[in-house]
């Protein structure tokens, strides 16, 4: 199905397609169209929409609805996400599946509400208190706003974790021809489960999500707990065991979660450009243009930002000596790249609230050749 859609609308349609039946949110530019579209679409599928009193309440209601059996979502932008972080930590600790869309804008604070940025990458990774792993996806097109929202729900259900979709203002408001695939596999929540509600320690993984009202007498707590939900606030082994499992359930499945795409990569490629989100569109065009002029240049697009796709570096062409990383921030993902490679890593940062064009990236590449 081909439609001319806005990124935020496509995200909402992806959520409905994925089986999202609960949305709670609070208005914030540039994400509000997601909420408006959900308000329109959810009643058509017997879903529930509510506009809450703030972002803290929104994510709280999302988590509550998830335990009542809903696939649930909220959308916001950087400042709203900051307000949500404590409850996101709660969702991580209680293994509550949900999807949080962050349509990023220029910050800090109110910043420029209608201008794009990629500056919440570290906020979603480390914003909540404590140690944890998180999943964050980064779409580059309106079609991917749709597809990755579905992917986000699938990851949330599989790993029982809050999953972030990191869009930005330009992608949220971009209108383009969009393919809405109807046959993407959807992971459904089991109707009933008798397994321990909080994890399988033998395999370090999550157990199926149970729900309230089935007589299971679930004890859900953000305090340290065992697999049955009993609070263990003094035991060192309980804390160690829980945190290890919460991290390992993600780490042991990096192959399935940490997704990326390679373009123009050959044995003799000397320069590599790594980009993600909307910036990847400019980067792709720049690399394509340069490679047509016989420059030995390749491109990798990160689809997953967290957990970082470190597998990229396990079999890169030996000839690569320089990696260019354009980002709409002062350098966030570039530091992850530096952790995994001995190549010269060259950041290209822009934080003036405008996007990075193909021309700029091409100039940067030509500068370093």
């Amino acid at each position, binding site marked *: 199905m081909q439609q001319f859609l806005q990124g935020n609308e496509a995200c909402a349609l992806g959520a409905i397609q994925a089986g999202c039946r609960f949305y709670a949110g609070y208005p914030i530019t540039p994400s509000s169209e997601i909420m408006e579209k959900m308000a329109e679409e959810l009643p058509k599928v017997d879903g529930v929409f509510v506009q809450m009193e703030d972002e803290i309440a929104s994510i709280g209601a999302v988590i509550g609805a998830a335990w009542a059996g809903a696939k649930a979502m909220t959308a916001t932008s950087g400042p709203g996400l900051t307000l949500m972080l404590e*409850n996101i930590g*709660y969702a991580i600790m209680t293994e509550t599946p949900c999807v949080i869309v962050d349509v990023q804008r220029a910050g800090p604070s109110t910043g420029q509400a209608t201008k794009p940025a990629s500056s919440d990458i570290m906020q979603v990774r480390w914003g909540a208190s404590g140690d944890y792993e998180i999943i964050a996806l980064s779409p580059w097109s309106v079609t991917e706003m749709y597809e990755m929202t579905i992917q986000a729900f699938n990851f949330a259900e599989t790993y029982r974790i809050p999953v972030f979709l990191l869009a930005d203002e330009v992608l949220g408001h971009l209108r383009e021809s969009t393919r809405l695939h109807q046959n993407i596999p959807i992971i459904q929540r089991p109707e009933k489960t008798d397994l321990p509600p909080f994890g399988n320690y033998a395999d370090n993984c999550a157990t199926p999500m149970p729900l309230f009202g089935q007589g299971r007498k679930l004890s*859900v707590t953000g305090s340290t707990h065992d697999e049955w939900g009993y*609070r263990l606030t003094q035991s060192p082994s309980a804390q160690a065991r829980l945190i290890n499992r919460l991290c390992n359930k993600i780490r042991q499945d990096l192959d399935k979660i940490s997704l990326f795409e390679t373009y123009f990569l050959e044995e003799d490629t000397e320069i590599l450009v790594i980009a993600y989100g909307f910036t990847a569109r400019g980067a792709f065009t720049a690399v394509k243009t340069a490679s047509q002029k016989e420059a030995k240049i390749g491109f990798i697009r990160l689809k997953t930002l967290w957990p970082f796709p470190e597998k990229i570096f396990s079999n890169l062409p030996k000839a690569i000596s320089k990696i260019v990383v354009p980002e709409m921030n002062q350098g966030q993902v570039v530091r992850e790249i530096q952790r995994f490679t001995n190549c010269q890593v060259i950041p290209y940062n822009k934080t003036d609230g405008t996007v990075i064009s193909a021309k700029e990236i091409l100039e940067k590449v030509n500068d370093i050749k």
Partner: protein
Amino acid sequence: MILNKYLRPEVFPTPFCPGCGHGILLQAVLRAIDELSLDINKMVFVSGIGCAAWIPSPHFAADTLHTTHGRPIAFATGIKLFNPSLKVVVISGDGDISAIGGNHLIHAARRNLEITVICANNSIYGMTGGQVGPTTPMRAKTATTPQGNPEPSFDLCGLVRGAGASCIARATVHHTRELIKYIKKAFTHQGFSFIDVISPCFTQFGRRNKEISGASPAEMILNLKKLCVHVKSSDELFTFKQNDKILIGEFVK
């Protein structure tokens, strides 16, 4: 004991201090459920952070959601809206519900969301060591007001009425039979119901304010009888105090 079927016996004795009012409230809630013959498997108990949050979690053998500080009403909103067949009960402390979570309280009341909020009001932050709260009486001594509280306290019943709540009561853990009656009324009310339950904390409040509380937890509970006055008309309920007396009673729209 008739309440055993609603309890997780393995978590007893409770973690509450000797003489804590919260244990009395704990059994009052279960007695109300028993007297109404409610199916506890179709109830969800949501609490925040603090001593009062431990009333349902883990003591109640039911679905319990022990949330973040101040946010139980927000979580409860999601549960109730998605599955209206569940009876959703919030039990949390005065600091949790009226200070950090005050915004959610007034908005749930405004929506007339069909949940019951039971505020275990001990007028202090107990678990963190006895700091002043929005419900602490003026002049009372706390860990953070060693010279006496300079601020007036909150009338929570008046607050939720202003916000639109349709069933409101104030009771104490001394007046247990009335407390059970009000909880039953709240559980059967169609719309938002709120009960402000005066539940003394001797460890953190009483110890520092013996001139009003008495010398022991038992005295503090018994003193409630002298401290409280039943309202004559339900409108009077919306003044927390009158001549240093706490007004108790019910208001149903």
